[in-house]
């Protein structure tokens, strides 16, 4: 069984490389479904509770994924710098999306895996409140517009202060803020789809995750009592 898995893994990589090499000559309606199926196969394995890997193999698998992420980041940075210097203009926005979304996800997952939901939500909330304030100050300085745009910052700050004593209220406040930001980005800002995805990942998604984690944490604590 294990030998068969190794053969299948090699075969998978071979097919992926082959498809990428032939990509230019294959019609898109064939290429895209094949790529989706091929790239989804390793993901299915991650959801299998009875993994065929032992703990050392899992460790190796995670280590190689970790290294691959940084290699990918290095490559993206290389492309960004090269594009910038060769065309003397900002590279297309999707490069920033590809670079930042995995890093934000990694950062948040590491926080929640390492610390309690309360501490992780405090850090994430504090971080995003500071980013929001900095963004508003840098774009408008001290003005009336600034005061108006600082409202989300104040709401995040109040929610962060509430986390320890009232995790349920803070959790719901985070969810409302996330929903508000989602509506704001969707309805009022006309952005490119890649920038929108990046903005969703940078602002509403962390707040949404914090909100769900805090409500879950509160529920679990009450059950234990």
């Amino acid at each position, binding site marked *: 069984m*294990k030998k068969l898995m190794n053969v299948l893994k090699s075969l998978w990589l071979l097919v992926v490389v082959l498809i990428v090499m032939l990509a230019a000559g294959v019609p898109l309606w064939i290429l895209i479904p094949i790529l989706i199926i091929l790239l989804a196969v390793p993901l299915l394995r991650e959801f299998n509770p009875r993994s065929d890997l*032992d*703990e*050392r*193999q899992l*460790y190796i698998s995670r280590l190689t994924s970790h290294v691959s992420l940084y290699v990918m980041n290095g490559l993206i940075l290389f492309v960004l710098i090269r594009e910038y210097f060769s065309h003397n203009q900002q590279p297309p926005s999707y490069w920033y999306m590809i670079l930042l979304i995995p890093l934000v996800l990694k950062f948040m997952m590491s926080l929640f895996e390492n610390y309690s939901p309360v501490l992780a939500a405090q850090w994430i909330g504090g971080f995003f409140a500071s980013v929001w304030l900095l963004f508003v100050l840098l774009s408008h300085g001290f003005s009336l517009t600034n005061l108006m745009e600082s409202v989300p910052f104040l709401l995040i700050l109040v929610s962060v202060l509430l986390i320890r004593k009232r995790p349920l209220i803070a959790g719901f406040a985070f969810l409302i803020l996330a929903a508000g930001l989602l509506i704001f980005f969707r309805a009022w800002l006309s952005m490119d789809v890649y920038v929108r995805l990046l903005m969703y990942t940078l602002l509403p998604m962390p707040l949404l995750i914090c909100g769900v984690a805090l409500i879950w944490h509160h529920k679990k604590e009450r059950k234990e009592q």
Partner: protein
Amino acid sequence: MKNSIRKYRFLQNEMTQQILAEKTGVTRQTIIAIEKGSFNPSVKLALKIARILGVSVEQLFTLDLHD
């Protein structure tokens, strides 16, 4: 961390790495890596190996001076 898996394998009727791997549910490469000291097993795997070899975990694994 030092280990005496090899010694206790031989005391157990010269148990091969393959048999130990099959009994613990890991690959032979993992047993080789643990014996060489290049991979530290989890507590669960260490307990499994100790039970199969009929010794305690402390007899199997000992800390180095610099650990």
